[in-house]
């Protein structure tokens, strides 16, 4: 696939690509066995695997509070939520595998620090209120993106997204409910909620990615209908939806420039610190190292377990073969 750039497009490729574009323009779903441009395949593998890695790494900041959840109901809900994320990781790795890559290969790239995952998970969760803020804001931002992806042109990805979206909206409500209890609770609880909002607001806005002008791959993804809305459109939708929710909680959004713009019919908001975004993506966020180390540790400590399972399965297969020979 690396040779795609260097290849001169043949007339046959040009014809196939035109037909492909036409097919996608007609709102048809691309399936694994269909012909697709090499770059389309490559883009999807990158995007889906990053998404899968995000689910798996995203388990860590929330798993941090399972042991300390303040009620049994919250403990069960949080545990179930993090389990759902592991499940999402599985669907997504499977969707990526339909494009001809191997899950282990993708995982190796993550562990080697070569593959990206959503930078939001490189922020720490020092407080219980972070479980609320993550559900409300981070899952909220993810949903905005994922609702769009339910209509993405690649069939297996779109179908995985439909399933994931249902669970994510449940998580978001759960997160918002945590925030509701905190913001209507004791002064200490309310302070906890405000502090979490202060820390998660800007990183959540960064989840939509760079401004459209700075996002060169977006246009091609939109043409292929992998993506259907631009980063800035999605970000604006998220802000418009979230500001009234914060007001209902009685919490203030940490942006002095945030105000309703009657003429635009949208909220205006202050500048995003893209330098911070770049630094966190580049590996310099507060938890990048810890997150990757946790994944590597789990993988290394799990190696003998995976080997044992394989060895046992092989022995069993041999035994079955011997038994049938005897029979």
């Amino acid at each position, binding site marked *: 696939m690396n040779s795609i750039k260097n290849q001169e497009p043949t007339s046959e490729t040009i014809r196939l690509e035109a037909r492909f574009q036409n097919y996608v323009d007609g709102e048809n779903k691309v399936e694994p066995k269909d012909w697709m441009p090499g770059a389309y395949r490559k883009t999807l593998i990158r995007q889906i695997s990053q998404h899968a890695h995000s689910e*798996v790494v995203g*388990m*860590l900041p929330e*798993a941090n509070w*399972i*042991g*300390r*959840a*303040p*009620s*049994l*109901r*919250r*403990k*069960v809900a949080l*545990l*179930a939520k*993090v*389990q759902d994320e*592991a*499940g999402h*990781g*599985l669907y997504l*790795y499977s969707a990526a595998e339909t494009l001809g890559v191997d899950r282990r290969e993708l995982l190796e790239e993550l562990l080697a620090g070569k593959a990206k995952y959503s930078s939001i998970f490189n922020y720490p969760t020092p407080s*219980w209120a972070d479980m609320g803020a993550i559900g409300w804001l981070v899952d909220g931002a993810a949903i905005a993106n994922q609702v769009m992806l339910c209509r993405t042109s690649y069939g297996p990805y779109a179908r995985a997204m439909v399933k994931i979206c249902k669970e994510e909206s449940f998580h978001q409500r759960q997160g918002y409910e*945590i925030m509701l*209890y905190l913001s209507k*609770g*004791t002064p*200490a*609880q309310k302070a906890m909620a405000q502090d979490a909002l202060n820390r998660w607001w800007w990183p959540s806005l960064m989840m939509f990615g760079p401004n459209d002008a700075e996002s060169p791959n977006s246009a091609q993804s939109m043409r292929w209908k992998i993506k259907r809305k631009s980063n800035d459109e999605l970000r604006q939708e998220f802000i418009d939806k979230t500001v009234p929710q914060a007001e209902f909680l009685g919490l203030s959004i940490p942006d002095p420039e945030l105000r309703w713009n009657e003429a635009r019919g949208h909220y205006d908001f202050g500048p995003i610190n893209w330098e911070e975004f770049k630094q966190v993506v580049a590996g310099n966020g507060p938890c990048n190292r810890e997150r990757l180390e*946790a994944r590597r*540790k*789990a993988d290394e*400590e*799990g*190696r*003998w*377990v*995976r*080997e*044992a*399972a394989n*060895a*046992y399965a092989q*022995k069993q297969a041999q035994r079955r073969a011997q038994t049938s020979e005897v029979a």
Partner: protein
Amino acid sequence: MEFSPDLRTQHLLHLADNALILGQRLSEWCGHGPVLEQDIAIINTALDQIGQARMLYQHAGKGMNPALDEDQLAFFRTENQFLNFTMLELPNGDWAQTLVRQFFFDTYNYLQYERLTESSDPALRAIAGKALKEIGYHAQFSAEWVIRMGDGTEESHKRAQDAVDRLWPYTGEFFESDGFSAEAAVRRAAPLPSDLQPHWEEKVDAVLVEAGLKKPVLQWFQTGGRKGQHTEHMGYILAELQFLPRLHPEAQW
């Protein structure tokens, strides 16, 4: 918290504490399992255990005077008021220690809950009916892993044998039959634990043989959990489990 539950309540708390403390321990695997599928599977067991703990605490708390809710029972009792088996509070160790512990306990728990479905206590009977199905899956899952590890690679065999040897001394506690257990048996609310022992040994022996693992000859067992006497690990579990509600005792979450 002033707390002097009667024998009936102690029995229910013992069942609930076993479920909660094991669930709390297992949930530490969340996000750290050897492979995604096993991460999901072990979280399932943790979820089932904590779910069972909730039902049992609710049932126990309703019968108390004054009545207490599940969170008061889970978060505001002290270490000596927890009546779980000490095995369940031990650190997870590696996958072998976690799954061997699970195998020993699941096998016991299945036999116990099978009998609890015939309890003279109707609420306990209903809880057991729901829990038994879950525990059946847990017992199958852990027995399969013991066999897989025992009969897998040299390393997995060694780790599994080490886990068996390490955990065996904690299995004696399962079958202690005095105090609240004797009282529950008299009421026909629960089986006498010692009655379960022959069945337990039969099942455990069969799985260990299939796994190629040696059953320890040791017959000197640890004790204490049923009386609220715990290992050094228990205090840390409760510190983690309970700190937040205790820091804000007036808060709703």
